[in-house]
């Protein structure tokens, strides 16, 4: 027997990924009564880095250094891309909001001016990205520095030698150190190791090992597992103990910087009064005058929600926002028309690594300037329904490296538009 409840709100955010959380953050910061439903575990797959535009044009694979001018070019060439529905200034405003929100959630991020940063990854490559956690921010512009890369024996997915080998291809000589995790202080799953970093004994043990390299190295790269709740304090205390700069190197999932984001959003949103319905599946019931009536169902309860506005941030296939049948791709909550390749044969190119990307990755919802999904006639399907994040069509974010930027600007703009129009 499920417990039945009812709840009223100004905004219902469906989805708890990047776009959903930013939308909930913006809505509750504006003082709107917000309910969020979804599963925020996808943050474990997020590197914790916020991309704006990393590669453009996608066919040439050109790495972008100055995203603002690249966006201007993209806006003129791809009228359908989500960035083309907004302006560079608005995008910057969105990022500023996000940075200040995370700052207030005790997860400080470093927001650059106009240029992309090239951050060292666990593969030894440099990833073009935009806004990064402060603990990661020293992982760029490493020329002229004596680098020490540290790994932990048994921690899978991160090898100091691998990073060094990557750096060697760029003619950078790097020192490596492999540390054994003392028994009783932690084990070698990333989350558990990150918990161990929060123990003073562990930090001391680590600092003692690092001190042997003092004089030989001036900056230390660690896998991004330096604590879950106070990573900046931890890296700073290591810097103090060793006299060397310390930075984190993001890598394979489960990603601790992603977990930190998840925790920061959840904690701050709950503090702002956002009701979070964890793992609830949303079913659209009907419109009652201007209000949406929806049901949120999970194993234990069923909540009837009355919402003035809805932000659809359900993602694409992994998030469950889109569902691919053999013959057609469907939108799962409102059954909205989905932009998609005409036939299944056209989903993919013959070459998996085709630089043009696959057409299926352009699938999603067509929207207007305010990111309201359109119906078949090209009019907004609902007055107050907005889409945010990867569910928006014409957005091959994995290739353009613009996922976080699109999530941020669509969520930010959608909530702002709803706020201006109706409250």
């Amino acid at each position: 027997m499920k417990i039945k409840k009812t709840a009223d709100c100004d905004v219902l955010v469906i989805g708890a990924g990047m776009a959903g959380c930013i939308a909930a953050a913006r809505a509750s910061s504006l003082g709107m009564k917000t309910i969020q439903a979804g599963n925020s575990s996808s943050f474990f797959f997020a590197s914790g880095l916020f991309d704006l535009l990393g590669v453009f044009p996608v066919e040439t694979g050109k790495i972008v250094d100055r995203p603002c001018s690249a966006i201007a070019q993209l806006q003129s060439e791809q009228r359908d891309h989500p960035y083309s529905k907004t302006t560079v200034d608005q995008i910057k405003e969105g990022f500023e909001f996000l940075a200040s929100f995370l700052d207030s959630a005790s997860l400080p991020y470093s927001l650059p001016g106009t240029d992309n940063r090239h951050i060292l990854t666990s593969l030894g490559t440099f990833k073009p990205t935009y806004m990064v956690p402060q603990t990661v921010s020293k992982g760029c512009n490493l020329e002229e520095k004596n680098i020490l890369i540290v790994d932990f024996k048994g921690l899978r997915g991160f090898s100091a030698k691998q990073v060094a080998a990557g750096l060697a291809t760029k003619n950078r000589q790097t020192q490596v150190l492999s540390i054994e995790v003392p028994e009783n202080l932690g084990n070698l799953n990333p989350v558990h190791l990150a918990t161990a970093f929060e123990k003073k004994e562990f930090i001391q043990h680590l600092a003692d090992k690092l001190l042997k390299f003092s004089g030989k190295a001036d900056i230390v790269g660690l896998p991004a597992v330096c604590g879950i709740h106070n990573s900046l304090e931890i890296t700073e205390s290591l810097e103090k103990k060793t006299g060397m700069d310390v930075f984190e190197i993001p890598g394979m999932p489960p990603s601790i910087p992603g977990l930190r984001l998840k925790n920061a959003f959840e904690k701050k949103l709950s503090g702002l009064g956002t009701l979070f319905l964890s793992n609830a599946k949303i079913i659209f019931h009907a419109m009652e005058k201007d209000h949406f009536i929806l049901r949120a169902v999970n194993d234990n309860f069923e909540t009837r929600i009355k919402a003035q506005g809805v932000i659809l941030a359900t993602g694409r296939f992994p998030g469950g926002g889109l569902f691919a049948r053999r013959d057609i791709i469907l939108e799962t909550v409102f059954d909205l028309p989905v932009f998609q390749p005409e036939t299944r044969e056209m989903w993919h190119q013959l070459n998996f690594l085709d630089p043009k990307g696959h057409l299926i990755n352009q699938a999603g919802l067509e929207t207007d300037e305010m990111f309201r999904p359109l119906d078949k006639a090209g009019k907004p399907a609902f007055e107050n329904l907005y889409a945010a994040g990867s569910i928006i069509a014409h957005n091959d974010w994995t290739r353009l490296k613009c996922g976080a930027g699109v999530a941020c600007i669509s969520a930010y703009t959608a909530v702002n538009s709803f706020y201006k129009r109706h409250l």
Partner: protein
Amino acid sequence: MFQTALYIAISLSLIGLLYQSRFFFKENRRFPGKKRGHGTWQIKLFLLNTLFQIKLFKAGRLRWLIHFLVASGFVYLLIFHALDDVTSFNWFQSYQSPVDPFQFLRNLAGLFVLAGCLGFLFRRMFFFALLKQRKIHLKGLFTILLILMVIVSGFLLEAVKIMSEPVFLEMVEEYSDIDETTGLEDLKIYWERQYHVVFNETLLITEEKFGAGKQLNEKFCIECHSPVKSAFISRSITLPLKKTGIFLNRHRADHLVYAVHYFLSLLMLVCLPFSRLFHIFLIPVASLEKNLTKEHLYPGPDQDPDQIQGYINTATVLACTNCGFCSNVCSVMPNFLITKNIHILPHAKIAAVKQLLHHAHLEPETGYWLQSGNGDCTFCHNCADICPSGIDLQSLWGLLNQKPVADGVENNHTFIEKLSLKQWTDLTSGKEPLLSAQNTTTQLADNGASFGNCIQCTICTNVCPVVEYDIDSNDYTPQQIMNLLRLGKKHLATGTRMVWNCLTCYTCQEYCPQGIKIADIMIELRNNGHLAATAIQLENFKKAE
């Protein structure tokens, strides 16, 4: 004869008390638990529980009321009525048993006990029928019936005495100089009308004679005989009996009923140490000391949780009156409803412990059910909190957990822990029906759709507190369990440490990005493992026989 019987009864009762109290002194073979630290003496609880049964009051108001009626009524009757030679006669100058307020109070107290006993019986008839898993213990029933018979015979005695002509004549002879010539008939007339005595002659009532009788009554009788209406119960028994009065008087029914009442009372005295009545002594003792309190079970950050070990004077276990409150509040009652192992419930466990104490032996099968039932205990302290007898139940369950109750008996958890996965799969081969029992499980582990979406991302393993606490003794991690299922190795999975160590905290399920019901699957696997392990163990007991 009555005197001799009294002395014999007192001696028997005293010997019985001494014999029963041996449990408090003898060194117990099963629970030699050395006293660790100091238990707390609960003086306040001791006093309140002894005098007012405060714990019973907290557990159930109606039950307390019934109990208090019996207890208060009986104590009054014992002190002021049964022992009146040494109490009432010495304490009150005007005391005579048929004088108010004593006559009225005796009836009132009798009514209390009567009502209480009927309440007990009523509850046993209906409450026990509702909870079919509980047996009526004849011991308790015997005690109630005994009390009931003592009280009923008392009322009957008073009723018979009220209408007795021989008693009337004896009294007249003893306390007055009235005879036929000086108005005995007048007094008879007055007493027939006012005191309901039944005479074996027809008396001609005139107002004159009645008045004369009243004067005689005032002169000789009234000091010791209050109006009979204050004996409101006995009088209402007398009235319908009056028709048989002549017959009863002729055969001196008063003597017979007196003997019955007297010997029933002595029987009660003798039974005191051997019946449920013994709880009068045991409950104060049990209420006095408590070694494991709720606070002990939730140790502070500086305390070593391993140090917390209960100690119990096992004799206090005998204070259990089988009231069943403990089982009603048991947190793992749902386990019982599924597994039907009665020894999950505290009232059944304590009954088995009693048997163990008395006979120092349990059948391996009973031992097994007790061991595994006790293994389900979550140490929530609910039973110890509610126990009206104040028994330190939580300490008892803790002790039971530490020692196997019968030789060669283990709970399924330790049984499986000792086996390698290879041995386990060898043992369970041929037990396939048990490993996917259709009726008792959610059927997730047999359904590929429930775990097929697993992408082996290791998030479940990363957030699992069991994995974090002790990675070495855990053979498989949650995502590996999912992989075992995908490989069709369900039998193997039911024996893994991960499945048996799982806390069912649901963190994995909450975090799984693929929405897989990991914790539910773990529980199902463990339940399946339980079924198989139980079958194997029971088979082993049969073989051993």
